[in-house]
C-alpha cells in the first residue's frame, strides 16, 4: 500500500504495523517516534498498531539543536 512518510509517498506492505513499517522503511526502531494521521503512537503500541492505507505518517528522531 502507499502512505505518506514525512511528506513523500512510500510503498509499504499492506496491513503493516508501525514496527513493520519502520523495518520496511529501513528506519531503526530505536530513537524514533511515529505519528499516524496526527496521532502519536506510543512506543509500546508499535507492534499492535496497524498503519491504514494512505496514512499520513511522521517519523521523527533527535538531531543536533538548542
Amino acid at each position, binding site marked *: 500500500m502507499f502512505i505518506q512518510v514525512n511528506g513523500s509517498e512510500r510503498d509499504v506492505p499492506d496491513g503493516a504495523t508501525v514496527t513493520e513499517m519502520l523495518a520496511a522503511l529501513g528506519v531503526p526502531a530505536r530513537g524514533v517516534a511515529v*505519528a499516524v494521521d496526527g496521532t*502519536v503512537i506510543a512506543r509500546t503500541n508499535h507492534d499492535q498498531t496497524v498503519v491504514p492505507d494512505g496514512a499520513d505518517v511522521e517519523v*521523527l528522531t533527535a538531531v*543536533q539543536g538548542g
Partner: protein
Amino acid sequence: MDDPLVIGDRQYNSRLITGTGGATNLAVLERALKASGTELTTVSIRRVDTAGGTGVLEVLERLGIDPLPNTAGCRTAAEAVLTARMAREALGTSWVKLEVVADDRTLLPDPVELLEAAATLIDDGFTVLPYTNDDPVLALRLEELGCAAVMPLGSPIGTGLGIRNPHNIELIVARANVPVILDAGIGTASDATLVMELGCSAVLLATAVTRATDPEAMATAMRHGVIAGRLAHGAGRVPQRFWAQASSPPR
C-alpha cells in the same frame, strides 16, 4: 564540593547545561561536550531524514549525558505539545525544554502560547523546563503552573549579548522556589560567572561554545566560569565602597 543541582527528581553535579546545535561536526561536538563537564544536553526533534540527526544520541550515551529534547521552532502551543509527545516516545524521557517562539527575528517566547503549552504538558505528566523571557511575572506564572524550573533568557538566542537586564534576573531569583536556569544570550565565560553570582542555579548555552573559534577551549572556560560564579555567590563578596580601603597595615 557537594552542591548538586536538583531539578524535579534528578540531581546533577554540573550546573552547566549545553545544547548540541551549531557544531560543525560530531567530533567537535563530542570534544566540547566532554570538556564542558555537562550532564544534561538539549537535542531537537526532526524528521528522520533531516540532515545532522544521525549519531547525536550515540555521542550523548558515550559521554553519559542525559538528552533534553526541546521544542525549538514551534510557534504554537499545539505544535509544541505534539513535538514534546513525539520526543517522549523517541527518547523515552518525559523531560522537555519547552520553546514556543513568536517570530524568527527575535526568537523570543510567545507568553500566551508558552503558558498554554506548559499547562497541557504538565497535565500530561511532563517535567517542563520552559524557555522564557526575563519577565518576572511570566516566570512566576510558569512556576505556579508546576514547571520544574524556569529558564529566563539573558538576551535573545544567538545574540551573545550576555545578561542585558541583571535586575530582572535578580527579581526572578528573589521569588522563585524552583531552579532558575539562565538560558540564551551567553557570549563568553564572564557572562556565565555573572549569571551564577546573580543567584541562578544553572546556565544553559549552546552556540557560545559550538560557534566559538575553539569550541573545546570555550567549553572548558564555561565549566570553570560556572563553578567560579556558583562559589562566589555563596562566598559572600566584599561590599562596594566609594573611597579606597587599605589592604596593608599603616607604616
